């Protein structure tokens, strides 16, 4: 049995990663889930959060925003509107996004829109906390 599978992380502008990895943890809309080789095929929506990739015992993290994941037995593709390695995110990137999200909450027209914006905001804050703890 193969102990690696192909992981690719794609944003509309470029393909960030395409490599053989041993495991990935994906922030699904309904909770994190781990992907190992021979995972059952799944298509899942993602929440804003961190994708954690393990390759040869080394861990890399990527921030994804507005995306979805397609899992097949031998591959995992994460498609995200915005995706970047966390190293690039540190500093202002995330703070700007949080500010945008806060703005979205304050200008929301109805309760539904507000709830959605608040949800995104809370996810972003969670990412911020995780990053701070690293």
């Amino acid at each position, binding site marked *: 049995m193969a102990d690696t599978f192909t992981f*690719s992380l*794609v*944003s*509309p*502008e*470029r*393909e960030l990663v395409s490599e053989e990895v041993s495991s990935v943890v994906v922030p*699904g*809309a*309904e909770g994190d889930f781990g992907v190992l080789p021979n995972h*059952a*095929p*799944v*298509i*899942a*929506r993602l929440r804003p959060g961190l994708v954690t990739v393990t390759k040869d015992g080394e861990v890399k993290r990527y921030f994804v925003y*507005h995306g*979805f994941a*397609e899992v*097949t*037995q031998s591959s995992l*593709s994460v*498609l995200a*509107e915005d995706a970047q390695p966390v190293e690039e995110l540190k500093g202002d990137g995330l703070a700007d996004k949080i500010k945008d999200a806060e703005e979205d909450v304050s200008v929301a027209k109805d309760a539904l829109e507000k709830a959605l914006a608040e949800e995104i905001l809370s996810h972003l804050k969670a990412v911020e906390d995780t990053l701070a703890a690293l």
Partner: protein
Amino acid sequence: MASLKELRNRIDSVKNTQKITKAMQMVAAAKLRRAQDAAEAARPYSERMDAVLGNLAAAMATMPGAPALLAGNGKSDRHLLVVATAERGLCGGFNSSISKLARAKALELKAQGKDVKLLCVGKKGYDALKREFRSDIVDVVDLSAVRQLGFNDAHDIGTKLITMFEADEFDVCTIFYNKFESVISQVPTAQQIIPAFFPTADNDEDKTVHVYDYEPDEKAILNDLLPRNVSVQVFKALLENGASEQGARMSAMDNATRNAGEMIDSLTILYNRSRQAQITKELIEIISGAEAL
């Protein structure tokens, strides 16, 4: 016959023009490479998106209550044509071939008694279409301030389209752009983006059909992805258009440079001939003057 000075001035001016066209050609060549890279880098995303949506659409097709963005709202009376052109001219037939295609389509639809609206992306298409369709143009998107096209620019247009669709302002949306084939060939293309249209994914080479689990259910994912797919399609079209524009400009400027070179050659020959003629004439005058003495 033009005087020598006049000829010299013309040669100089053509030479200057040639310098400009040459420079524009080289700039276009450099930009083309970047635009091509960008178009290539965007390909994996839209390909996977198509594959996933094709899969989902096939699964949803049998179910009632498919989202309007996929199945349409059941009518096709009102069309929105998105005409994507360049912000700048001097690129051969690039802009006119798109606006010609869009114009033909608009007239055809009107002849069928349908309602047509236009949304122009890029100034040149608007310039070409405003005389005939002024009252039908609902919006103009100006991208002249954008140096490097990002997904956000396309996303803004996509959001606009979705908002209009949801406000029930049109039934079918088609985008017009130039598909990049090569530097010398760009194909004006019309692509329907609302309702979404997927090429049937059941080609022979890809026989491994996966039965996916969906999280959350199919419908929620489809509702989430379809609006985004509109932006992705717009983005793809704009990138193709960007590469095509530079390709078209490059070959147009190459032609112009060559024509200027030919013109310089023929003018130079003319110049040398008249110079020689003048020298001969002067010599004859001197000799016949001397003989008369």
